[in-house]
């Protein structure tokens, strides 16, 4: 899928933007603080969730006005063209309209697939499990849009259970009732994640790539992962005593972690060099996009924030070749046009500059 047009109104630093784009990659350049990341953040909202900064709708409203904002775009997906619009009024959560009809986040997720890599992920392999879990779940969501509902259900039931734990409630029936629900949603979450890890591994191996293969494994801090609904129910019941002492739920898919290994070297991702860690992430994002292209008949939109800057010229050229081979509309940012030189006319260019507290978007400058 790809966008054919994008317009922003009062979204972050952008007062008014109107872009027409073709299916080629989009190279966005401009000085620090110009508004490049803001632009691709807007594109990230075309998939369900809070976008690549995980910000609230209120944070996205242009300051100082802090009124509502609007994003609209035409999307070309496997089943045809659709008009998608997002509005947020006075800080309220964004409303989605698909072809002028109010739509749910799940409906949006089925229509649009967007995957991304942002600088905040650079420390993914060395920081806490939460970031890796979130990274994995974004990939899961791109394959299984219904994953979002399972996660919501699981978290809701778990919050209820955690409250019982904190208040030291002893009513076993109550725990059982909540754990039954957690187990049902949890088993689905786990199955989706396992399937996603398998899809990513497959897709990494299936293609000749210059990026290193990351072999992935779902893990958790201690013991074997409860997999089935029954396993989970038993694990929750068994853990009650410990959980009451801790005041929270200590087992379940919310404790899962993603273990990555630089396959060719047999070195854990966390022990790899900075550049290698980044390369592993690129490899995974490309694999995600390839697998989706296979499933849906068209690649997803790919967002790469400041990825070019971290790669040497050879790696950069390899990345561009792979993106073009994939045929994805990859929105990439960088400070200068020279970072995209290797793309030649395989990409369209957009310059973003800051002019008096407002981002200005200029299209089509500097074609090579």
């Amino acid at each position: 899928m790809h966008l054919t047009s994008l317009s922003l109104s009062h979204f972050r630093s952008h007062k008014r933007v109107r872009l027409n784009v073709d299916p080629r990659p989009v190279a966005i350049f401009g000085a620090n603080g110009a508004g490049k990341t803001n632009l691709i953040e807007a594109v990230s909202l075309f998939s369900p969730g809070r976008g690549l900064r995980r910000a609230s709708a209120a944070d996205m409203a242009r300051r100082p006005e802090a009124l509502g904002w609007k994003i609209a775009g035409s999307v070309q997906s496997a089943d045809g063209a659709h008009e998608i619009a997002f509005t947020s009024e006075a800080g309220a959560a964004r409303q989605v309209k698909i072809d002028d009809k109010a739509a749910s986040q799940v409906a949006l997720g089925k229509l649009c697939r967007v995957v991304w890599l942002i600088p905040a992920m650079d420390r993914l392999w060395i920081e806490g499990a939460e970031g890796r879990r979130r990274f994995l779940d974004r990939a899961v969501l791109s394959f299984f849009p219904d994953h979002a509902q399972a996660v919501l259900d699981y978290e809701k039931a778990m919050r209820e259970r955690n409250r019982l734990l904190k208040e030291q409630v002893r009513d076993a029936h109550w725990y059982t009732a909540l754990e039954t629900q957690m187990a049902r949603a949890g088993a689905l979450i786990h199955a989706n994640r396992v399937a996603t890890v398998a899809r990513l591994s497959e897709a990494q191996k299936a293609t000749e790539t210059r990026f290193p293969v990351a072999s992935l494994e779902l893990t958790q801090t201690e013991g074997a992962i409860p997999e089935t609904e029954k396993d989970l129910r038993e694990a929750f019941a068994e853990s009650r005593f410990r959980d009451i002492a801790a005041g929270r739920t200590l087992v379940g898919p919310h404790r899962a972690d993603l273990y990555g290994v630089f396959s060719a070297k047999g070195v854990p991702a966390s022990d790899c060099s900075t550049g290698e860690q980044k390369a592993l992430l690129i490899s995974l994002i490309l694999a995600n996009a390839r697998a989706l292209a296979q499933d849906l008949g068209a690649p997803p939109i790919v967002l790469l924030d400041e990825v070019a800057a971290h790669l040497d010229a050879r790696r950069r050229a390899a990345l561009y070749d792979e993106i073009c081979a994939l045929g994805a509309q990859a929105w990439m940012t960088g400070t200068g046009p020279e970072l995209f030189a290797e793309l030649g006319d395989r990409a369209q260019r957009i310059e973003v500059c800051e002019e008096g507290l407002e981002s200005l978007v200029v299209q089509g400058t500097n074609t090579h």
Partner: protein
Amino acid sequence: MTRRNDPIEALIALMARLPGLGPRSARRVVLYLIRKRAQVLRPLAEAMMAVSESARECLNCGNVGTSDICEICEDTRRANGILCVVEEVSDLWAMERAGVFKGRYHVLGGTLSALEGVGPEDLRIPGLINRLETEEITEVILALNATIDGQTTAHYIADQLPGQVTVTTLAQGVPIGGELDYLDDGTISAALNARKTF
């Protein structure tokens, strides 16, 4: 016009607190009532007064009526051993409007939620367990909402019912007159799982 202690303003303020009404619609309603003083406002005030004096919750099932034991609980023809458990009185009334259920009800008055501070003792769960024996219940229908809280409550109750009582829930699936194309995946898969011979 907006004097304090003005009874009209006071009425508007009260109306605006009703479910489904806001300040604008409350003003419209009050103006209408004043214009129709004899035909609507007076009778309405009297009806409200009467209800405020006579309305009460059925001591047995939680239904709202004008006597301590509601009509359904009084009606021996409805003692068929089947008990339908619902969250709210409005759910009971909705079932009654459909007019197909011939048994009795039990209104919980909400759902279990630790986060909202609603525990089993805040719902009519002990009363439900009691009724199983006194009314010789053979089947309990758990007609609770398909939300996490609704389903938690359903599991909680099911877990405590004696083995000889059959526990059922309402089927989930395609609504009457519904078109498949408009249903979400969850509904479609529920409908598929609950399919039956044609």
